């Protein structure tokens, strides 16, 4: 080219005007979008402030300290109508956690069983699992919860209670079941139980390292049992083996003794766990199917027994596929527990909504509800992300 022989330096002038420059446009566009959002926000906030002023709605968080004045039928911690709104909402939050944790455990059990059943070589079992999954997945959860609740409260009263197994009574007022009455030593047993789990974990790590180094497998089952079951048992025996069983007995018109699951709680747990269980079943099924058959064959060719093939080869690989969608199912279950408001279980949304109706402070109450769910969602996904990273396949 002719210009290449020119000794004069060529200064390339920008031929595009500034408004066609990519960076300038990006900045302008972002400023535009941000100011639109800020303007919209300002417009909404000013409207809200104005509306609340004309309607005499108080603002601020001071209402949390005022007396709530409404009762809550179920509470994990002490609560009476004389307590504050803040405590009422806390009680609701703990109820949400309670139903979510129990629901997650049961849903996982149901999901794994049904998911495996769908893959069963037994035609009848596989078909039944399919019918279960399809019929529960395609009907709204709210409808299912209302049906469960309706069925439970339609049960006969305590006097004609249905005895499912000795000591467990199904009534329209809830499920009565025997429970062990609290003793001081139980706290120690719980602590020792946790200590036992920690010891087992440490021991298992040590045993694995030893096996990696020397090839000698250390026995695991017996020491684990000793740590987890033995330690609390010893404490219990040392304390003189105190045991008083509270057994529900019909006294007058109701049961006395034992413990009771309220109809609302029972309906929530049954509804949430069967519904989410159907989704988890699909997650488990697709996770196991995702492990290629060659892996199973290779493991068999190495001479592993079928149990070990599942435990060491198929399961760990399917877990990598299962965990991410499983996380979102857990999140869904937690969020779906908010439907409790429809059947009167006093969860976070329900108590928050009552507070809203009594104080009229909609913005604060809805902000609390949303904020708490957001925090729960973030916490679960952070934990599951950590776990997922932990089990992820380390590739080259």
């Amino acid at each position, binding site marked *: 080219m002719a210009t290449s022989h020119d000794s004069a330096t060529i200064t390339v002038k920008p031929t595009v005007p500034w408004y066609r420059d990519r960076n300038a446009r*990006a900045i302008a*566009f*972002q400023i535009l*979008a*941000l100011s639109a*959002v800020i303007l919209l926000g300002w417009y*909404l906030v000013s*409207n*809200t402030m*104005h*509306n*609340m002023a*004309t309607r005499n709605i108080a603002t601020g968080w001071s209402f949390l300290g005022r007396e709530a004045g409404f009762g809550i039928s179920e509470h994990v911690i002490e609560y009476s109508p004389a307590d504050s709104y803040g405590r009422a909402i806390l009680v609701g939050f703990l109820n949400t956690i309670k139903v979510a944790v129990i629901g997650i455990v049961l849903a996982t059990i149901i999901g794994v069983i049904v998911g495996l059943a769908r893959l069963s*070589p*037994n*035609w*009848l*079992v596989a078909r*039944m699992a399919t019918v279960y999954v*399809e*019929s529960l*997945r*395609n*009907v*709204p*959860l*709210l*409808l*299912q919860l*209302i*049906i469960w609740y*309706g*069925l439970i409260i*339609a049960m006969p009263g305590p006097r004609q209670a249905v005895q499912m197994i000795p000591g467990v009574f199904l009534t329209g007022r809830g499920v009565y079941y025997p429970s062990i009455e609290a003793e001081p030593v139980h706290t120690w047993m719980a602590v020792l139980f946790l200590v036992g789990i920690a010891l087992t974990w440490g021991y298992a790590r040590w045993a694995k390292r030893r096996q990696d180094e020397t090839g000698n497998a250390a026995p695991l089952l017996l020491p684990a049992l000793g740590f987890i079951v033995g330690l609390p048992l010893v404490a219990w025996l040392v304390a003189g083996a105190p045991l008083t069983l509270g057994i529900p007995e019909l006294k007058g018109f109701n049961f006395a003794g034992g413990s009771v699951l309220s109809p609302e709680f029972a309906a929530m747990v049954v509804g949430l766990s069967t519904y989410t269980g159907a989704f988890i079943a699909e997650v488990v099924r697709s996770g196991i*199917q*995702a492990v*290629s058959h060659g892996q199973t064959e290779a493991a068999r060719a190495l001479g592993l027994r079928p149990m070990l093939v599942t435990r060491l080869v198929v399961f760990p690989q399917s877990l990598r596929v299962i965990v991410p969608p499983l996380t979102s199912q857990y999140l869904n279950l937690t*969020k*779906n527990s*908010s*439907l409790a*408001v*429809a059947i009167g279980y006093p969860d976070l*949304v329900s108590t928050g*909504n009552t507070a*809203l109706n009594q104080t009229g402070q*909609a*913005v604060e109450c*809805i902000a609390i*509800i*949303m904020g708490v*769910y*957001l925090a729960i*969602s*973030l916490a679960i996904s952070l934990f599951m992300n950590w776990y997922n990273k932990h089990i992820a396949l380390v590739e080259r």
Partner: protein
Amino acid sequence: MTAAADADLIPARRPPASETGALGWARHNLFSGWLNTIITIVAAFVAYKVIWGALSYTVFNAVWTGTPQTCQDMLGKGACWLAIQDRYRFILFGPFDYDQQWRGALVIFLFVAMVGLSAIRRFWGKKLIYGWVAALAVVLWLMYGGLGLKVVETSKWGGLPLTLLLAFAGIIFAFPLGIVLALGRRSHMPAIKALCVAYIELIRGVPLISVLFMASVMFPLFLPENITIDKVLRAQVGIILFTAAYTAEAIRGGLQAVPKGQYEAADALGLGYWRKMSLIVLPQALKISIPSIVNNFISTLKDTSLVTIIALYDLLNTSKIAFNEPQWRSFFFDGFVVAGLIFFVFCFSISRISIKIERVLDVGHKRR
């Protein structure tokens, strides 16, 4: 081989009867080994109990004719279809003007017809989207009235038409919003990206009911004093805002699956951002995300039942209220069975359509 050797060949024997036909199938699939046999027997017993129980409740012991007293006698043993015969118009259409309920029936028919058309491959394309928008306009006209039809206030809308309207309008309006959010989330501009991520994650982190509460309680506070928006519209906006976040994630999945070469090729052709997206990337990305959007739609359809909690007359609420009459009060369960069946038929058929779409487009990430 010689002909003689051929003649000596023994013709292949048929497999033993126990290995073929129904018997062989049963042997392999039901009775292979003692454990499997036990499982089969237990499962067969459970299946028999469930099927027989359901049949005798809904058919054999059910009350088809008679008086409420006949139903009362069979309470808990058989379904009271008598109550459904009496109340089905309320379950299906809610408090909609009685003499105008044919309009609701037409709305249901229109939606079913559109779903049916959408399942036929020949109709897939841009025209189908226009068809849906047109159908939505006709539905709104049928529901509200005007232009020669009697006006029915939204406070009287109810039943299946309302449920379908909330769900379909929800997904149709959430679609463009979802595209914008998904593009924003993939954008290189940090402020835009942050805004979209914040919106999507905020909405996905909270339950729908809290969004609906916000829509019903806080929207009136957000707007200037003299403007009031309708209760149904408020719920509809809440559903759209909620669905948009999930649609955005489905579309983002599609965008990520488009190979990078496609973006670069569009750049090389000198296409600007909007042309690159609308001509090259989005057509491919949307095709990939259709199955997940359809699955989102099934969730939306089920989730519309939550408007019951903010006291709209959707299908779930009408089937509940229909049984508030004193003589039918004890048979609430049968109303929910009917509502559940209607939901099941819709959700199940749409999920089958979704599977079909996935198979035909062959974009699923199936492992072979």
